[in-house]
């Protein structure tokens, strides 16, 4: 187990940077997700850590060991691929034992360790099956066992749940997290699914176009996104454009098309600068009367989803906001309401 550091990592393909100057530290035993849309460079970053790609510049360190020029077979990593990449011509036992075989571990010692990881992924008794005889979820667990048996310094997972159906994906999510916690292995996880990364990670790294936009805990990234792209990619976000009129410590007053809003901020914005207020759908409440930090609107659409109700509310200037309320209080479409925003949950973006 070791700390993972990525320093000023850049990877260019045919002159275009797939990953541009990335810095990231993953602490020992930490679970970090690289999250972003396809083509954002998250997989390239992971492959550079694995040694399957050679960085154009920058460094990859495991602990204090610079592995930038070390081939993958000598990095002591465990990697799980999106399509599991189980060897089709080997039984489950041989697949899992492959890493041991490469390290010269044979016989009863190998068998003991194979049994123990199979037990860990709850697949005891599957030793002599072939990969094609297993379901997707089972193959996934074999891939995990195969990666973990060699006791790698770092565990790398590349969209491991993308090929599973929704129900199994949820199960495997808990399974992976519990397993990672139990072993305490340093883990780097690539996904484009924000829910997956939130549920699994200690920290999330949000990437767009080869750059890191934000690194932080799931809660922090959700509540305090660093950029508009992050705000839109993680969950749902209402972005209301406006201009800062006043700032006092961490509260800014913003004039927007829907009215004057109070927003939380952590940057020293000058009055007069254009800015965007980000409000999550559940941070807005529908109230009957006018109240502070509220503005009038008319309900355009209403979708009852059981636990919550999804509203589309049009404000006076025509801006349509997405609002979520708990399922008990129901307003009707066409109803004129007042939208109240919790100033602590409104967030100012540049």
């Amino acid at each position, binding site marked *: 187990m070791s700390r993972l550091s990525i320093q000023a990592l850049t990877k260019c393909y045919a002159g275009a940077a797939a990953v541009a100057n990335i810095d990231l530290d993953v602490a020992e035993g930490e679970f970090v997700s690289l999250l972003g849309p396809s083509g954002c460079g998250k997989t390239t970053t992971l492959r550079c850590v*694995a*040694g*399957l790609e050679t960085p154009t510049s920058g460094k990859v360190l495991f602990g204090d060991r610079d592995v930038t020029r070390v*081939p*993958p*077979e*000598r*990095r002591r*990593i*465990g*990697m799980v*691929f999106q*399509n599991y*990449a*189980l*060897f*089709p*011509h*080997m*039984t489950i036992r041989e697949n899992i034992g*492959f*890493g041991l075989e*490469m*390290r010269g571990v044979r016989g009863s010692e190998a068998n003991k360790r194979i049994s123990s990881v199979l037990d860990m992924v709850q697949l005891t008794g599957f030793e002599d099956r*072939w990969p094609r005889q297993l379901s997707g979820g089972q193959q996934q667990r074999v891939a995990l066992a*195969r*990666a973990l048996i*060699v006791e790698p310094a770092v565990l*790398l997972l590349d969209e491991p749940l993308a090929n599973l159906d929704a129900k199994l994906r949820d199960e495997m999510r808990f399974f992976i997290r519990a397993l990672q916690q139990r072993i305490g292995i340093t883990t780097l996880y690539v996904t484009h699914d924000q829910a997956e990364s939130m549920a699994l990670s200690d920290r999330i790294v949000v990437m767009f176009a080869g750059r890191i936009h934000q690194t932080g805990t799931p809660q922090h990234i959700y509540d305090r996104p660093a950029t508009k792209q992050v705000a839109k990619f993680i969950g749902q976000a209402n972005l209301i454009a406006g201009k800062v009129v006043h700032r006092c410590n961490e509260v800014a007053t913003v004039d927007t098309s829907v009215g004057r809003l109070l927003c939380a901020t952590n940057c020293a914005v000058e009055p007069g600068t254009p800015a965007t207020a980000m409000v999550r759908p559940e941070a807005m409440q529908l109230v009957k009367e006018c109240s502070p930090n509220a503005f009038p609107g008319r309900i355009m659409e209403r979708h009852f989803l059981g636990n919550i109700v999804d509203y589309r509310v049009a404000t006076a200037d025509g801006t349509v906001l997405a609002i979520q309320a708990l399922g008990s209080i129901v307003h009707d479409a066409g109803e004129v309401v007042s939208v109240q925003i919790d100033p602590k949950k409104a967030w100012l973006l540049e």
Partner: protein
Amino acid sequence: MTEASEIRVRHWLLAAPALSLIGLFLLIPYINIGIMSFRTPSTTAPYGPGYTVANYVHILSDSLYLSLLAETLLFATVTTAVCLLMAFPVAFHLARTTSRWRGLLYAGVLSPLLTGVVIRCFGWIVLLANNGLVNQALGTVGLGPFQLMYNATGVTIALVHVFLPFMILPLMTAIQSIDPHWEEAARTLGAPRTRVFQRIVLPLILPGLQSGVILVFVLAASAYVIPMLLGGGRVQTLPTVIFQQLMGGLLWPFGAALALTLSFAVLASIWAFVFLGRKRMRGLA
């Protein structure tokens, strides 16, 4: 009729055209040759009266024919080995390349099949003759001339050229079926490139390799035109000798026996090859 037997009948009906073709043009001639090989020779008819095993006794007791058989199989083996070595990099590149020249490369691989074998042989004669292009080019740097034709070298070169596509194509298909992630997974699990090749790539392309080897081996062992033209009468293989027996000597029964001996030897070689590879191919259904 039960449902199962009805399905069976339908399967047979589907196979019927192919089966009748094979029966008509392969099985019956083979039986004919088989019978012929046990006939006695005649100078006035294709064969004389009565049956005999003398033809086979003659072949198996005459070191001339046994060494011819050995030489023919050696030609086929060397051709197959050279084809395999040359085909592998090409097949690998073709299977994995994303280049826009891929189509052109593919056409290049198929090109030996686009002209008749006689034309191709004459092409090689122009290149390999004592005053041919290759020797002329070598001559300008003070080398040679080398004897590249009318010997085993010339015949092997032409055999390799003509049969290379039959090795490249099945190999390419086999390599295409290998997910590059399998190789990468093996690397991350501690396997250096050589071990990845040995434990992942090689076992997975074995079926393709096997069909390529069988195709080239059979074709090279039964080649007639190439040894004939590039050997110029100085290289003898069983097919050329069989032709002489049939057309020159009019010894049809003996020629038939030679032909069947060659077929049997080739079949036995292939069987041995498949048998040796069988254990390594398990789980590759």
